C-alpha cells in the first residue's frame, strides 16, 4: 500500500519489540507530521546510542564508550557487595528501591536451554573473575523469580559458595513467574532487605 521511504519506516518500526503492524503505521504517520528538527533529534539519538554506548567492562551494565558505567565509576558505592541481575533494566528496578548501595553484575540472560542459553552464553566466567580481583564478600542473586531465574541463581550459588563468600538470594514475595523489571519498588526493596543465604 505504501512505497519508498514510508514503507521502509513502517517496516523498521514493526521490527521493534511490542510494536505490531498497526502501531508501526500509526508511529510512522506521526513522524511524518512532526517538524523536521524533531525527527532529526529522534534519528540522531538512535544513532548516538549505537555509536557511543557500550557495555561496562567491569559489570556489563550499559555505559558510555570507553568508560565504566555510572555505578562502577561511583566510588561511594560499596565495592564488596555485588548484586547479580539478568538485564541492565533490572539495575534500574533495584536502584529505584534505594535499598542497595553496592555494585552490580549483569549476566545478560538466564539459563534457558530452549533458547540455547547455557553458562557460556552468560557473563558467568567474568563474575567469577571479579570475586578475588575486587575482594567481593557478598553476592546477592537477583535473577527473576521464575523457573529460569531460579535455576540460574542455584547454578551460581553452587559456583560461588565454595569461594567462601556470602551468597544470598532475594526473598520470595515477588510475584512468581514475573519479571523483576515490573515489580514495584516497595516489594522489590523488601525482597532485597529480606534476602537469605542460599543453601546450594
Amino acid at each position: 500500500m505504501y512505497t519508498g521511504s514510508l514503507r521502509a519506516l513502517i517496516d523498521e518500526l514493526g521490527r521493534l519489540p511490542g510494536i505490531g503492524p498497526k502501531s508501526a503505521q500509526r508511529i510512522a504517520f506521526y513522524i511524518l507530521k512532526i517538524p523536521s528538527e524533531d525527527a532529526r533529534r529522534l534519528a540522531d539519538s538512535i544513532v548516538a546510542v549505537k555509536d557511543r554506548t557500550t557495555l561496562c567492562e567491569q559489570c556489563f551494565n550499559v555505559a558510555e564508550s570507553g568508560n565504566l558505567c555510572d555505578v562502577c565509576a561511583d566510588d561511594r558505592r560499596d565495592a564488596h557487595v555485588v548484586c547479580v541481575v539478568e538485564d541492565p533494566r533490572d539495575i534500574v528496578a533495584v536502584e529505584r528501591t534505594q535499598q542497595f548501595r553496592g555494585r552490580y553484575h549483569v549476566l545478560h540472560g538466564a539459563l534457558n536451554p530452549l533458547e540455547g542459553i547455557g553458562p557460556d552464553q552468560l557473563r558467568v566466567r567474568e563474575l567469577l573473575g571479579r570475586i578475588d580481583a575486587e575482594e567481593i564478600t557478598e553476592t546477592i542473586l537477583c535473577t527473576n523469580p521464575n523457573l529460569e531465574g531460579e535455576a540460574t541463581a542455584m547454578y551460581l550459588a553452587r559456583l560461588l559458595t565454595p569461594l567462601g563468600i556470602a551468597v544470598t538470594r532475594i526473598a520470595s514475595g515477588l510475584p512468581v513467574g514475573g519479571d523483576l523489571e515490573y515489580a514495584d519498588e516497595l516489594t522489590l526493596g523488601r525482597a532485597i532487605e529480606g534476602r537469605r543465604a542460599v543453601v546450594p
Partner: protein
Amino acid sequence: MSGPDRGARLAHLKLHDIRAFVEATLDVARDGTTLITGPNGSGKTTVLEAVAYLGTQRSFRTTSRDAMVRIGCERAIVRAELEREGRRVTVESELRVGGGARTLVNRRTVQARSELSRAVPTTVFSPDDLGLVQGPPARRRDLLDGALGIVDHKAGAALDALERVLRQRGALLRQAAGRLSAEVAATLDVWDERLVASGEEVSEARRALVADLEPRVAHAYAALAGHDRTACHRSGQKAVSMEYRPGWDGPLAAALVQRRTEDVRRATSTVGPQRDEVWCAITGRDARLHASQGEQRSLALALRLGIHALVTERSGAAPLLLLDDVFSELDRDRCRALVRHLPPGQALLTTTMALPEGVEVAAVVDVRAIGVRG
C-alpha cells in the same frame, strides 16, 4: 434446573477462521442443554472443540493445533463471553499457524495453563473417549491434570512448572549430544533440582486425586453398568479400582541421578511424573488389557462423570459439559443410564442420531445458521 452459583456460564461464542468457519457467532442457553444440530461435517464438533480449547489450549480432536486454523489463514480467534458471579469475563484465544498462541482473560495475557483451566472449566465427552481406557498413560494423566488445575491452585502451578522444566531439561539433553561433560552435569543438577521440586508436588497431588476419584468413578460405573452387575458380585472384587503408579521408584532425586547417563545417551527424560500411570481395573483385572469393549466404554464414561463430580464438589462449580456425539457409540442400556446420570448445569450437545429419550433441551442452534463458511 439452576446450577451452583460460583460457576462460569458461557453466554456467547465467536469464532474467526476456525476450521471451516470464516466467522461464526452463537448464543448459549444460560442453564441446561443447548443442542447443536446440523448434518454431518457441518461444524457441530468445531463449536465444542473451540470452547474446550479456551480452557485447555488443546484440541480434543487432533494433536495439531494448526488443524484448527482455517486452511489458507495465518491465524484464528476464539472468543467467549462468560458470566461469573454476576461479572462478565471475556476469554480470547489467538492461534497462529506454526506455533504461537496466546490467550487473554479480560484483555490480560494469561500464560499459565492451570489459570486458563479455571477461567473456562469444561468436561468433554467425545466419541474418542474409549482411548481414556485403551490409550497410552498420557490420556489418563491429562484427565487428572485438567482437574488438578481447577481444584488445586498450588498443584496447578506445579504442573505448569513441571511442563516447563521438562522442556528445558529435554533441550539440554539434546544439546549434550550424548556426552555427559562436566558442564552438562553442572547445569543438569539445577534443572533436576527444579524437576524434583515440581515433580514430587505433582506426584503427591495426583496420588491424592486418584484416591479421591476412585469411589466417584466406581459409583458412576455402577450406575452405568447396572445391568451387568452380577459379574462383579460373583468375583467378590471391587467393581472398579484405580491406582496411581509413579513413573519412578524411590525418591525422584535419586532416580534422576541413577538414570542420568541413560537420559543423556537417549536425549530424553526417562524417569519422572511424565511417565506416571493411572492404573484402572474392573473386578481386579487390568481394564486396558482384560476388559470387554462394553466394560471399557462404561469405564470411560465413568471416568468423565467421576472427574466432573469431583471438580464440581471441590471447586463449588460445575464445569461446562461438552457432549460430542456421545450416544451413537453406546448401546440402548448405557445410553439410557447416561441420560439418567448426566449432571445438571450448562451443557453443549451435538448428536448424529435422534436424541435419546429423557434429554431435556433448553435451546436448539442450527450450526448452518451461525455464520459464514469459507
